């Protein structure tokens, strides 16, 4: 039996003149935590909604669990769970009632359903809030409720659509822990986001998309190896003359230097001890600096190098 859980072939989706998905291809294997990474408007949610048969698409094929996915394929839907981007619960029902209702739409047997509902409440840490109505919950707790409603029936394939938007760091960590735990329990996860740190933290496989197209895919390490950049040396420095920046560019393995808002970023391709070379340069030139450190390239660097754009808007 194939271990491909989701397969998208040449998917095209148009909104009048705008091509939201442009011959998009994707394959997700069983047991993966698959990250779909891309800036706002890249087509992540559109992809997800097409896979779930919520959105009509113009061309292409979508298979889930090896079968063609259609709105009336209830046998496939039974095995899928969804955590939508916006909190999708009934305001008039309590936490317990919401989870019970949505789980009950998948699980017929009452006893099994009750057990699953309890498991879900425990899992997301809402035991103390089971009688609360959604409007009494904070943003983070609401998100947890949102998750519980989507996973209570213990699906094999779970879609998370930007689940940590506008969530406090503590709740965000909890959510990421939950997702990892679900994966450990055997679920295949599809995770869409524009936060690269989350993807790097939990995803086993990543696809970066932009303007409806796949830009790059692989593990985090594989993606980083695709680009020239192997190391970034970052220096906090006031008043660096322009001619010194030019001289820095001449250092070995340095291919790009930028100096913005008193922060100098030196991108290096290959080489070892790059930071030592930079320190030596400053000492030789008698240039004072506040702080210097080295960091590995991020997925944002991957995206930037491939597309020329940032993954996130400056405001993010």
């Amino acid at each position, binding site marked *: 039996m194939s271990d491909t859980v989701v397969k998208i072939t040449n998917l095209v989706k148009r909104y009048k003149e705008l091509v939201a998905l442009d011959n998009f291809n994707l394959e997700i294997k069983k047991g993966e935590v698959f990250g779909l990474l891309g800036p706002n408007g890249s087509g992540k949610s559109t992809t997800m909604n097409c896979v779930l048969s919520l959105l009509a698409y113009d061309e292409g094929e979508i298979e889930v669990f090896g079968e063609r996915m259609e709105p009336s394929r209830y046998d496939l839907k039974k095995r899928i769970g969804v955590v939508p981007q916006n909190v999708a619960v009934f305001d008039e029902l309590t936490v317990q009632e919401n989870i019970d209702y949505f789980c009950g739409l998948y699980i017929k047997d009452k006893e099994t359903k009750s057990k699953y509902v309890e498991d879900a409440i425990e899992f997301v840490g809402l035991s103390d809030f089971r009688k609360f109505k959604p409007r*009494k*919950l*904070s943003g983070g*707790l609401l998100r947890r409720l949102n998750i519980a409603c989507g996973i209570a029936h213990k699906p094999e394939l779970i879609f998370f659509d930007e689940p940590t938007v506008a969530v406090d760091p503590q709740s965000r960590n909890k959510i990421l822990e939950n997702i990892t735990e679900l994966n450990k329990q055997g679920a295949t996860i599809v995770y869409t986001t524009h936060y690269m740190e989350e993807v790097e933290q939990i995803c086993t496989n990543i696809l970066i998309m932009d303007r409806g197209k796949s830009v790059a895919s692989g593990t985090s390490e594989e993606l980083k190896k695709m680009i020239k950049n192997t190391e970034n040396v970052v220096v906090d420095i006031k008043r660096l003359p322009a001619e010194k920046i030019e001289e820095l560019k001449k250092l070995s393995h340095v291919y790009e230097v930028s100096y913005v808002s008193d922060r100098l970023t030196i991108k290096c391709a290959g080489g070892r001890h790059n930071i030592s070379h930079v320190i030596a340069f400053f000492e030789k030139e008698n240039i004072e600096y506040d702080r210097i450190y080295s960091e590995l390239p991020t997925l944002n660097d991957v995206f930037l190098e491939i597309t020329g754009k940032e993954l996130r808007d400056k405001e993010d």
Partner: protein
Amino acid sequence: MQVFKSFFKILKAQKAGIIIYTAIILVMLLVMGKAGTGNEDVFEQTGYTIIIDDEDDTEVSRGLKEYLLSIHEEKKGDFSEDQITDLLYYRSVLAHVVIPKGFEEDVKSGRNSGVQLRSDDSLPVASYLESQINAYIKHLYNYLSVGETFAEADSKAKNDSDYSRLVTMSQSKNANENRLDSVNVILFAAFSLMGIILSGLLPVLFKFKNKGVAERTAVSSYRPEKRVLELSLATVLFSFVVFLALAAMLYFLAGKKYDVADLGLYALNLFTFTVVTALIAIMIAQLPISGSTSQVGMITNVVSLSLSFLGGIFVPLSVLGEGVKSFGRFLPTYWYATAVEKIETGAAFSEIAVCLLIQLLFGAAFIVVGIICARMSENKSARPAKSEN
């Protein structure tokens, strides 16, 4: 003029609702606005719309029919029994007369001819028509029985039944033509005004009252007085545009038969009511409700229908009982309808002005209520909120 401009941007988003409401009301006005004439200066026997079925179709039966139709109006058509019941119930016709077969024979023999008269027997119309039919047949027989020809007997019977020669009018009513249907349209305008203004203004005012928006505005450097002034200005402008549009519609539908002075008075009355309606909207917006679309719809319907029914807009003041009128005096629509009545009957300007002033007093009262509600909700929100978690 940030608030002023935003008002109209938000209003623009509501334009679909406003246009649709206006269209509905225009349809209603068009359906209602048909001309009607009558002359109150001379005696006219009360005529009703009746259905006459002449099953005999002889010169005698045609004589009776002709006589009845000299007073009443015939509704022609091929109606089933059920349809006639409907027409009688809803008073599209007030009576159904059936002249049976053999009528001529019976009349000439002096027998009871059995003309059927179907109507609501608790109303005077039944007795009235019965008297007329009996009178004509009796007179006709009287002349036939002494050997007159039918033509002669019919002529004399009709002459005997022509009562206008016996009646004098002691004083004439206002020289204006009876413009019943135009008056209905002008009255209905009050309901139209409320519908359009409430459905247009309320959603916008509630949006400004929205907690998040109100809090943002409160912490800004925009002075509250300036905000209130601009909101009021925008409300006034919107209401004035609605007034102009409605006044134009009314002139087109019903205004041509009025002279300039009357038109001016009707316009003034309508304008006064426009101001009052806008103030009602402002008052409602201060109430502690969320102002969702369905709530706005319900409020618009309840307020406009209630004020209209009790204020003599749909059902004439003269028909409403004294108890209703006593209650209605506490409604601005009552004074609008009273002003319309006074303009129609040519009352002195001072009497009309009183009606307008009372409407404005209502408006002032609504403002006061609105301010009180606003203050109460401000005090409530100033108290510290309970912790949510």
